[in-house]
């Protein structure tokens, strides 16, 4: 949750920019994400001094330098761990974690899953470009199997992670996917993440035009998008296709693609982000585009749940200890329970 200004100031996106030159490669998808976040937060009229951006290492992790809030550019994979301590000690702050696929799923995988199960009220923006950009082009934990990169000239042998399924498995309470090329969609998702109380995890497909150009083209390109993308809208049936002529329906325990000429809209799968089972199936719609019987890739909010947040529980325990034992007295502590006189 962001903290807003007490006094009425009207922030603009520009007010959130710093004097630092933005150093991503021209054409990098990161620019769009920066812009959408600046305008979303300006619109929310956040209090700049109560907002902290925390990042790890990688191209995306330069992000804090470009936001006129508090910020830490930490070490590889550890933004999530650092943010956990920050939020635990300062529940009043609005904390945003900026990370990449290598940073959060490879070197920082452990901290990510533990942050999610603890459900600190922070936002994680995972820029997924399916490549290591900063180190100049090695395959990442989300690169498709067989991808040729500098470190995999004969194709990568690693089976890729499915980030949405992974974080659902780690008990994430807000899971969403968006893409750099759809600013409007991204702003909506950012807004929804911000208003979620608990950890929000957003995977953002981000084009690295230098080392992995076009990785997500089929989801962003006008010609292919409609057939490969399904936009999730709360309470609405799952419909896609250039002519909105296809839908998804459950048959037994399996989602299948149906033609709307055969099936009524009312019989389609209705999106319900509170339904964990449905979220699981959505996360599993992860087929390689164009492969036989491939399901479209979902974008939007897969899942959200209201669950207790670590930092609140931590404070509650302290309050409970104080009500049981009284506020700590230093002399009592130093004396301990038994003393003697000489």
């Amino acid at each position, binding site marked *: 949750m962001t903290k807003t200004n007490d006094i009425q100031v009207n922030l603009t996106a520009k007010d959130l920019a710093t004097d630092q030159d933005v150093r991503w490669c021209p054409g990098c998808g990161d620019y769009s994400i920066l812009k959408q976040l600046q305008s979303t937060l300006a619109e929310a009229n956040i209090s700049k001094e109560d907002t902290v951006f925390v990042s790890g290492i990688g191209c995306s992790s330069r992000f804090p330098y470009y936001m006129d809030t508090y910020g830490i550019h930490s070490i590889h994979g550890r933004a999530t761990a*650092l943010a956990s*301590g920050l939020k635990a000690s300062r529940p009043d*702050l609005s904390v945003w974690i900026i990370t990449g696929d290598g940073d959060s799923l490879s070197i920082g995988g452990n901290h990510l899953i*533990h942050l999610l199960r603890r459900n600190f009220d922070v936002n994680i923006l995972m820029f997924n470009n399916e490549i290591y950009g900063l180190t100049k082009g090695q395959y990442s934990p989300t690169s498709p199997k067989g991808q040729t990169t500098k470190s995999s000239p004969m194709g990568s042998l690693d089976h890729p992670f499915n980030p949405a399924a992974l974080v659902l498995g780690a008990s994430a309470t807000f899971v969403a996917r968006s893409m750099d090329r759809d600013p409007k969609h991204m702003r909506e998702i950012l807004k929804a993440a911000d208003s979620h109380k608990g950890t929000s995890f957003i995977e953002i497909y981000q084009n690295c035009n230098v080392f992995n150009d076009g990785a997500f083209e089929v989801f962003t390109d006008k010609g292919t998008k409609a057939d490969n993308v399904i936009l999730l809208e709360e309470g609405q049936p799952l419909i896609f296709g250039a002519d909105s002529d296809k839908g998804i329906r459950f048959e037994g325990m399996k989602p299948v693609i149906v033609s709307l000429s055969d099936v009524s809209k009312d019989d389609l799968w209705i999106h319900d982000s509170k339904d964990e089972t449905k979220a699981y199936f959505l996360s599993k719609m992860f087929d390689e585009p164009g492969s036989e019987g491939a399901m479209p890739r979902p974008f939007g909010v897969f899942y959200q749940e209201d669950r207790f947040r670590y930092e609140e529980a931590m404070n509650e325990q302290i309050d409970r200890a104080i009500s049981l034992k009284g506020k*700590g007295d230093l002399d009592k502590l130093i*004396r*301990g329970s*038994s003393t003697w006189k000489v």
Partner: protein
Amino acid sequence: MTKVTEKKEDVIILFAGDSGDGMQLTGSLFTNTSALYGNDISTFPDFPAEIRAPLGTVAGVSGFKLHFASVDIFTPGDDVEVLVAMNAAALKANLHQLKIGGTIIANTAGFDKKNLRLAKYDNEQSPLLDKSLDKFRVIELDVSKMTREALVDSGLGTKEVDRCKNMYVLGFLFWMYNRTLENTETFIKEKFAKKPDIRDANIKVLKSGYFFGDTNETFTTRFEVESAHLPKGEYRSIMGNQATAIGLIVAAKKANLDLFYGSYPITPASDILHELARHKNYGVKTFQAEDEIAAVCASIGASYGGAIGVTASSGPGIALKGEAIGLAVMLEIPLVIINVQRGGPSTGLPTKTEQSDLMQAINGRNGEAPLVVIAPHSPSDCFHTIIEATRISIEHMVPVMYLSDGFIANGSEPWKFPAAEDIKEIKPNFADAEKSLEDGAFYPYARDERLVREWATPGMKDLQHRVGGLEKDFKSGNVSYDPANHERMVKVRQEKVDRIADFIPEQKIEQGEDQGDILVIGWGSTYGASRTAVRELINEGHKVSQAHIKYLNPFPKNLFDVMKNFDKVLIPEINNGQLINLINAKYDLRAIPFNKIKGLPFTSREIKEKLLELLS
């Protein structure tokens, strides 16, 4: 019949048995009672590495050494006077520590064929039956049988009955050393308040042990260790890890900051986490992280947010934290890192003590990453030293490494504790918009004359800024790849640490003259053994002195001046020679190493003998 009481200056008892025999508790209860009698005390537990090593084996023996005296003492002592051996393995593992003429209290039930075989005695030959123990006085007690007999009407099962047998031994020892049972009875009543049958059984067996000594005709002599002439005042007994924990709470309050403690379970540091977790009513936030790296990173996050972040581990965990500690060096924010050292390298000897992480503390990070290193020298000194570590970290915006070790952490001693109000305030160097803005701009890396930057924490209006692990511009803190700036920053981070020497006490001579033949200079847990050895030699007329270094980086400014007035400087360390490398590299002098690397502390005799060899 009449029983005589003989006075003794000091006694060392070693309680040894299977890890399930309750020897730690027995030792602690004897300690508490001795403390109430006003004895000076020093204790040291010796745990097996496995939680439940196979019963009856030497590997499974758990020991608790107690030194209590009517004079002031500084170590758990060298020569054991009484060895309580609950089984054959306990005797085998510890007999070498017993002095000639010492007493063995042997639980005969623990010397049956099975136990002898498990303890690997040749041909299952009992040492109680051959002549191998002739140099000692052996008191055979069938503790198991007598406990069962005492509880024959208790209605308890055999398992519960057998659990009481340590109380029999304790009762007997209380008789032997002329102590009352009152304190222990109170303890038992509190502990088993909800289980009256167990409570009554323990008290009954405790008394049986005592009465056995009183009525049995074989035992004619009791011993008396009078109270020590400790400085007047109020005392409590304290263990090192406990002192570290409460010192942290006090330090945070004195700085008016929240305490955030991030850590991952590891022997022998976990007790600090346990102790802190009990004190949530002091506002303590304890965070058991998913791993060592998360523990330090969360603590850095907390410090960034304006709390005092503390993380703790032992050597292997500190190795994992290295990169993050480097980040804290770069961020120049407070962070206290506790290393309760144990035997290394790698997993090493988790339950044994060693001082082998000094080089790791000083140098164990990539790049030029100086930080402050400080070490307590005894269990109660942990309290003052951790407050000092926290003070330096907060007031100088610098990570501080605090090097305790297994010996100090688990050892205990009486402590004439201070009043909270006598502990100095700690003053964080907070920024605020009114004083910190320069023409409307904030320069997070601007420094004062100590080279300390201001601490601007989120929530402070108009001071938003970005920090990180990339090299910083000298003033603005923005990322800078400028070659000259990098060199300047490396030097400034070093100089900032060096200047802390202006804010710490000068090195003093602990005992002896400020010049002479030999200066024994150590750090950390060798203090007590050196102290005893040097005291004895001074009393014998030798020109020997002792100094002990608390501030290991930076060193006190006058350290060389203190050392240069002696013909020889001896540095005892529980490692292969680490402090000596620092001293010989830095100063124009050739100190003499004295090393022990057995996972055990020095005995004072070892140091004394080394000194006598150098004196001759």
